[in-house]
Structures are given as C-alpha cells and as structure tokens.
C-alpha cells in the first residue's frame, strides 16, 4: 500500500498533479452551479422589479 503512495519515488510530483487537476474539475463544477444560481436570482430580481407598478 505504501508503495502505491510512494509512486516509485515520484510521489512529490504525481500526487500534486492529480490534486491540482481534480481541484480544477471540482472547482469548475462548483463555479458553474454558482453562476447558474446567480443568473437565476438576477432574473428573478428583474422580474420582480418589472412587476412593480411604475
């Protein structure tokens, strides 16, 4: 098991590489969902403002 983590001596390079890539993947998912939520909230706000009597 520890030889797996050791990655043949390259652990200091392999694991950070995977960590950075997976971080980018998860951040993208997070950012995309957040962007959508913000757009929806903004659209809702615009509708409310338009609904108000002028």
């Amino acid at each position, binding site marked *: 098991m520890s030889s797996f983590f050791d*990655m043949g001596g390259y652990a200091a*390079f*392999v694991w950070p590489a*995977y960590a950075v890539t997976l971080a980018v993947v998860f951040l*993208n998912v997070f950012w995309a969902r957040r962007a959508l939520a913000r757009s*929806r909230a903004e659209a809702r706000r615009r509708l409310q403002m338009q609904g108000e009597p002028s």
Partner: protein
Amino acid sequence: MAWTWFHRFGSPPHVYRLAARLTPWFAWPAALCIAAGLWGGLVLAPPDYQQGDGVRILYVHAPSAWMSLMVYTTMAVAAAIGLIWRIKVAHAVAASCAPIGASFTFAALVTGALWGEPMWGTYWEWDPRLTSELVLLFLYLGYMGLRAGIEDTQRADRASAVLAVVGVVNVPIIHYSVTWWNSLHQAPSVMRMDKPAMPPSMLLPLLLMLLGFTLLFVALLLVRLRGEVLARERAASWIREVVSV
C-alpha cells in the same frame, strides 16, 4: 426541415430547457469515465520502463491539455457563428466556454511543470509548445478581461467574438509546435493520423480520461449556458415559469 432544427437551437427558452434536461446525461457518464480512468491510470496501468510511476501524470496532463485546446476551438467556432449569424445563444456558448478552458489550461501548465521536473530536470522551459500553451492562457484571460471591460452585453459578445476568432490561430500552433520545431516536449503519440504508439494498458485509461473530461466539458457548458442565456433575455415571459422555483 433542417432550418427548423437550426432555428430551435437559436431559441433561448428551448435551449434553456434542453440544457437542463441533457445535463445529467453528460454529468454522470463523465463522473463514471473519470473515476474509471483514474483507477486505470493510478492502479491498473503499468509503470513506464523509463519514467517509472512518474508516467502516471500523463493521465491528468494530456486530458487537461486536450481540454484547453478543444474548449478554445469550441469557443472560437461559437463566437464565429454568433458574429456571422447574430445568434445570441452562440455568444452565450462562447461566454460559457472561457472560464472552463482557462482553468484547464492552468491545470495543463501546472501538471506539465510537475511532470517536467523529474523527467527533463526543469519545471519550465521556453520551448514552443509550453510557450504557446502559456499564450493560450493569456488569450483566455484577455477574452474574459475584454468581456468584463465592456458593460453592454451585446457589444461585449461581439467584441470578444472577434478576439476569439483572431486568437484561434494559436491552437494549431500549439498542436503542431512539437513537429514544426525541435521541442523538449514529446511528439504526439495519440492524436496523430496513424495508429497511436501506446500499449493498450496505457491507452485505455487515457482514452477514458479524455472521454470523461470531454463529457464533463459538455455538462459544465450546459450548466453555464443556462445562466448565460438567462442573462441575455430581458423581458421574456418564458423566464417567469422557469425561474420561480
């Protein structure tokens, strides 16, 4: 017949609803492929006779680099369509691509540096492929900066579309840089015309990761696209039913 199809894709409410329905069909297969690819790359695939276990970085570096180029091309094509036919949805697609592409370009550069240090003895080298990949990151950042600098959405769409199209010349430069110039970076072993020069035990996890990342891109694009489409629709009645949860 074909034109109805084309027009439906230009219709924002249709695109919004379609994107919402399609997202899971890309998101879950993406997760599966990536998980399988990670398992294959980290555990099942053999170590390289020269690079040992260090070669496993390939399974995250190559897909990231692929993403950086593929996303930019998609962005440029969408931008061109938006410019030529004045289709707002196309501009929305281009806008959605940029942050995705930029982050994976960053990942490609970082994983490349982490691979380069043990293999070539240096984190960075000003050779054509690395330099043009860095240029690609600047193109993405410039695109997003230009969008952010222009307040009017329509003008921002069109101005950044011109930029995206002008910058697309960098994509073939990056891809072919390793064959055109003597480069430190290795020549393409998968994306070539003849058969890939890689054993199946390595090729399979790599293809899984490439596929997984591509599916992930579509899923991310669909999610962002909905928000971008919403932002470009002013007083549309379809928004009411779609947004009031």
